[in-house]
Structure formats: C-alpha cells, structure tokens
C-alpha cells in the first residue's frame, strides 16, 4: 500500500483558500501517482496480448475482460457476487468488533486477564486465516457461516490485540482524572477506555480487514457457492481467463476502495481528532 497516496499531508487548518487549493492539488497529484503504474500495466496489456497473439486460455485480451465486466454489470451478476462477498465481510467484521473490542479492553485493564490469554492470542495469530477453514466447514458446514467465521477470526485477533495496546497507552493521569471525577467501572469503559483506545482500535480494524479480505477469498473458493472467490475459482474449470482476471481486478479494486475511502479516512480522522494525545501523553 503506498503511504503517500493514503495519507495526504496534514496541515493545521487555515482560512486561506490558497492553502486549500494547494492541498487539493497535492491530493490530485498523489492520486495520479497512485494510478500511474496501473495505467502503464493496462496499456502494456492492451498492446502486448494482441501483438504476441496470446491464447485466451493463457491470458485474456483487455476487450474480452471488458466485455465480461459490462455484461456482468448489466445483468447484475457481478453485483450479486460483490454483495455476497461484502455482506460476509460486513457480518464477520461487525461480530469481531462487537466481541473483540470489549475483550481487548478487558485485556488492557487487567494484567491477570491479559497474562492468561496472551499466549493463546499469540498462538492464534500464527494460525489466523485459512488454516481455520477445515474446522470452520466442519463446524458450520459449507456456506456463509464458515466464511463469516474466517473473516471474524482475522479481524477479531487484530482488534483484540490493538485494543489492548490502545488501553495500555492511555496515560495514568487521564485514568486518575476520570476516577477522581466520579467515573465508575461502567462509565470508565464507555467514556475513557473505548474512546481512549479508539485510534488504536481503528488501526487494528484496518489491519484485520486486510487479513480478512484475503481470507475471505480463500474461504469462498473452498466453502461456498457464491461470492467473488467462488466465481474466480469456478472460472478455472471452463478456462475462462477473462472471468478470472476480472474477479482478481474486482477483488483488488474493492479492497483499495474500502481501504482508501472508508478505513484510511476513519483512521486519519480518529487520530487527528485525538491529536493532543501524542503530545500530552508522552
């Protein structure tokens, strides 16, 4: 992932429109830089495949992939697969946040809890991902359940870990301030630990969803009969390289879009809003 493209330079807000314009220009040029290698790649593809007379069974032409794309868009079949995959990511991620964040906070607060679960967590990190697919399908059968489990698994461990670190980074004086102002355990959770760990949680979410997206495709290949991964693998049986390439592009582009327009801004906004923490906390 190119850091330059994802993090446009942040400057303190200013009233001058000139600076805003410069910032917009910088953002535009960073987007152009980000896209440039892809443009070159597509251009090479458009030129080389016909020039070398590559067999469609080896690699499809740009035109045939485009044709599969447009027909998939018009008859809606592409969207069906996309939404099937996104729904699984959504469900698994939602579940992972709902369980992982409270658990991570508990780990951050209590040395006993974290001491007990840490070895287990580290062990699981090594296994997180597709190693769980066999068990997932045994437990939950072939279908959405197993795939959601794989997504959950990937996001959960990342989120638990970063939430724990986030809670530990909250400065002692902040915790003391809240307690001395009368915050009980429940209030501490909602008002201090959760927002205090938020920048860290968001970072973990972004990382975990990266793992989850890869795991999802693998799980879909094995465990279901719908979704991008399934379509990708099914196409192999019919030597439909154009479908394979289209699915690969779709998987990559969807992740870039999610990361760039959802996760990265979320992370940036949280860290920005919390900005003082780095100065005051250290």
């Amino acid at each position: 992932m190119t850091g330059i493209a994802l993090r446009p330079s942040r400057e303190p807000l200013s009233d001058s429109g000139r600076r805003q314009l410069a910032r917009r220009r910088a953002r535009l040029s960073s987007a152009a830089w980000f896209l440039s290698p892809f443009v070159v790649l597509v251009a090479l593809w458009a030129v080389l495949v016909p020039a070398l007379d590559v067999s469609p069974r080896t690699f499809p032409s740009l035109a045939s992939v485009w044709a599969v794309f447009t027909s998939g868009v018009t008859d809606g079949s592409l969207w069906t697969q996309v939404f099937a995959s996104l729904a699984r990511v959504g469900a698994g991620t939602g579940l992972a946040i709902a369980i992982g964040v409270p658990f991570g906070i508990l780990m951050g607060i209590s040395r006993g809890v974290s001491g007990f679960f840490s070895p287990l967590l580290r062990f699981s990190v090594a296994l997180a991902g597709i190693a769980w697919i066999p068990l997932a399908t045994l437990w939950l059968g072939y279908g959405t359940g197993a795939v959601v489990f794989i997504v959950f698994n990937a996001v959960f461990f990342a989120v638990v870990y970063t939430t724990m670190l986030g809670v530990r980074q909250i400065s002692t004086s902040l915790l003391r301030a809240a307690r001395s102002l009368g915050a009980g355990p429940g209030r501490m959770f909602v008002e201090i630990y959760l927002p205090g760990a938020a920048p860290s949680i968001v970072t973990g979410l972004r990382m975990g969803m990266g793992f989850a997206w890869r795991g999802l495709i693998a799980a879909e290949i094995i465990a279901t009969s719908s979704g991008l991964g399934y379509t990708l693998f099914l196409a192999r049986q019919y030597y439909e390289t154009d479908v394979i390439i289209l699915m690969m592009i779709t998987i990559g582009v969807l992740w870039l879009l999610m990361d760039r327009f959802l996760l990265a801004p979320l992370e940036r906004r949280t860290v920005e809003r919390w900005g003082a923490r780095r100065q005051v906390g250290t």
Partner: protein
Amino acid sequence: MSLLSVENLNQVYTDAYTHEEMTAVGNVSFDIPEGQFISLIGPSGCGKTTVLNIVAGFIRASGGSVMLAGKPISGPGPDRGVVFQDFALFPWKSVEANIAFGLKMRGVDKAERKRRAREVIELVGLSGFEAKYPHELSGGMRQRVGVARVLATEPTMMLMDEPFASIDAQTRRVLQQEVLRIWEQERPTVLFVTHDVDEAIFMSDRVIVLSSRPSAVQADIEIPIPRPRTWSDVYADPAFVRIRRELMAMLGVDDDEKGS
C-alpha cells in the same frame, strides 16, 4: 476544625529494578482548615506528589491516616478535585464536555450541565472556546480547562499537582494570579504541590516544607501577605522577601541560582 488531617503518613514501596524497599514518605503530619490555601514544597524526590496522590486516593499509604472531614479516605472521589501537571484533559472531548464530565458522572441532566459548564467557562476566561478540543489550545488554556473541570463539580477540596510546571514562565504568572482571583471568589480548600518557592509563597496562606527522604515536615510557615495579591505587590512586600530567603536556605538553594 480542620477539613483535612494527615497524621504520621508513611509510604514505602519496592523499587522495581533493585527490589529494595524505598521510603518515599517518612512521617508526615499536617492539618488544613477549611478554606485555606496550602502549598507543599520540598527538594525533588521528597515525596510531595506522593502525599498528594495519597490524599487524592490514587495510591494507598503504607501507614498513618488521612481524614477528610473526619472520614478516612478510601480511593479517589469527586469530593477531591485534582488538577494535574500534564492537564489530563480528555482529548476526544470538547472543552465544554471536559468541564461537564464530573457533572455527567454525577447524573446531572444535560441542560443543567451546560448551564454550569458555561458559568465556569466564563469564570476561567475560556468563553468562545467551548467547542474547541484540547489539542487546539495552548498549554495555559488547557490548564484553565483543567481548573474549570474541577471547579464545575464544587469539590470539598482542590488538589493541585505542580499545575503550572509545564507552562511557560510568562503565562504561568498570569495563571497564578487568575487562579488566586478564582480562589478568592469560591474559597475552596486547596492543597497545592510545587517546587517553585515564589509560587508557593504567592499563592498560599501557609507553606509546608518537607525535608528530603525519608521526608517529614521540616517547617510550616504562615504567609502574612494581604489578599488580593498581585505579583507586582508581592515582589515588593518585605514579608515575601524574608520568607523567600528563609525557604531558599531551608531547601539549600542559593538565592540567585533559582529564579522563577
């Protein structure tokens, strides 16, 4: 009748590296009557902040007793508002939400919280900054929020732990006067920890000097300078000059070396 009474306070801890028993506070006793402004000073490492943390309920004393209004202290509570050296503002909350936090914890309804927060914001001179976030404020303004957050809950006592130590010298002078102005309006009982002799004299009714480790109360000095005080008046006051010299000698500091 004293509001706070600290008796034979003793704090021993085990050093994390050497595993040796260290005595942070040897044997400290003092009383604070209601409405008095007391400073605690002493050489660095004498445990003055430890004493404040024990009074705040953040750490438990190894021995001795701390009574607030006749009741022993067990843990932190909103009857003792703490102002921290690093401000300890909630970075994700606006100025107003920071100040209203204690009231929210107490279950005060939203409208009343807002009304009270605005009142305190006015008092500490932060009007117009209600919606700002801590990182958008200067150090001096952040500590105004820190003071306001404590004032909003009207605690029995205010505990201030070197509140101006990380603020630039000029702003510090202004804030010291401001806090005194506010104090004269509200008259809370204050325990103020500082390593700045001038500050201790300027702010306080009494200055308690702790000796170096294992610490005990070395001196308890009344400050007979009339209020309201301003820096220009106090600097010229013969009592200030005399007490300052006395304290400097006690702390083993040569007068000219340590300025502000």
